[in-house]
C-alpha cells in the first residue's frame, strides 16, 4: 500500500471517482450480478475497464498507415492480449492505489500500448501477440531515468510499477 502523500497524488492523478461512476457502477452491478455465487470482483474489474475495452475494440478499425507515419494496423492478437490482461491489471492496480484507465494507442509494429502519467512519472506498457513490456519513465535520460522490462504472465512487474507511479 502507498503512503498518505502518494495517496493524495494518486487521487489527483486518477481524477477521483465521480458520482456518475458510482451511479454507473450501481446499475452495472444490479444488471450483471445475477446470483450470490457470481464472481463480484470479476464483475467490478470488468466495470472499471469497460471504457478501455471499447477503445481496444476501436483499434480493430485502424487501417495500415493509420497515423500517416507508415505504421502497421494494430495486430488483432496484440489487441486480444491487451484486452485479456486489462481486468487483471485493474485488480492488481486497485489493490495498491487508485485505478485509472490507461491511454490506449499503438506503435509502428502494430503493438498495443497503455500509458499512464502522474506528475513527473510515467508507465508505458506494450502488448504484442504474446509478449508484454513495461517502461517506467521519470526523465529524458534513457540510461538513468528509464527502466524497461519484459512482463511475466503473473504481472509482478506491473504490481511493482503501479504504486511507484504515485510515490515521488
Amino acid at each position, binding site marked *: 500500500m502507498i503512503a498518505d502523500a502518494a495517496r493524495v497524488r494518486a487521487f*489527483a*492523478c*486518477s*481524477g*477521483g471517482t465521480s458520482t456518475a461512476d458510482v451511479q454507473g457502477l450501481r446499475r452495472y452491478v444490479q444488471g450483471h450480478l445475477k446470483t450470490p455465487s457470481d464472481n463480484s470482483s470479476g464483475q467490478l474489474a470488468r466495470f472499471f475497464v469497460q471504457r478501455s475495452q471499447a477503445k481496444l475494440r476501436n483499434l480493430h478499425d485502424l487501417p495500415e498507415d*493509420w*497515423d*500517416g*507515419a*507508415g*505504421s502497421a494496423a494494430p495486430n488483432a492478437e496484440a489487441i486480444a492480449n491487451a484486452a485479456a490482461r486489462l481486468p487483471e491489471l485493474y485488480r492488481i492496480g486497485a489493490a495498491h492505489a487508485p485505478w*485509472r484507465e490507461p*491511454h*490506449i*494507442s*499503438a*506503435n*509502428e*509494429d502494430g503493438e498495443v*500500448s497503455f*500509458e499512464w*502519467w502522474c506528475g513527473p512519472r*510515467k508507465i*508505458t506498457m*506494450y502488448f504484442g501477440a504474446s509478449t508484454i*513490456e513495461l*517502461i517506467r*519513465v521519470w*526523465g*529524458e*535520460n*534513457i*540510461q*538513468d531515468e*528509464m527502466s*524497461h522490462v519484459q512482463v511475466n504472465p503473473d504481472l509482478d512487474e506491473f504490481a511493482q510499477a503501479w504504486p511507484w507511479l504515485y510515490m515521488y
Partner: protein
Amino acid sequence: MSEQLGDGPPPGAEALPANQLPTTHIGNEERLFRAVSDHENHHATDPSGMLLHLCHSAFNDREKRPSVDRENLQTGGPEATRLNASDGIVVLQADEVRGIHGVVTLDAKQQPLDSHAVDVWHRPLAENPSHGQIEAAPEIQSPGTWKRLKESLCRVAGKRGWLLRPASARESAPL
C-alpha cells in the same frame, strides 16, 4: 490559357531533385516544429483537464527518423508545419535532441551492444525546404531501443509544451 499557381519553380526553370537541394547545419539553439495529428491515440488529457500529455505514438515513424521543420526556414510559421488544420504542434530544441544520452541497444543478457548518437539533420524536400529529420547513428534496429528513444523525445518536446494544441483540445487549459 491557365495561369501557373503554387510554389513550384518559375516557368523555364527545372526543380532540383530532393537529394540535390542545398542543406545547412542546424544550430544547437534552433527550434524544431513537430506536427502531431489530432488523433485520440496521440494525446491524452489529464483527468484534471489541465494537462495535455504527448503520447509515444506522436513520434511513430516506420523508418525511425521522425520529421521536424526548422523554425528558421519555415516561412509560414508553425501553422505551415501542420499537415491538417486540426494538427497540434510541439517544439523541440536541437541541442536537447542532441543531448539525449543513453541510447543503447542491449543484447539478450542486457549488456550494451550498440551505442547510438541522436542528431537532427536538414533533409529538405522540394515541397518543404525546412524539413529535417531526427536520426540515430548507427541506425536503430532494436524495437526496444526505439521505444525508449520515443519516450525521451516526448520528454524533450514536453519541456516547452504545445505551441499549438490539436483542434480537439484547443478549448482546454494550456499545458
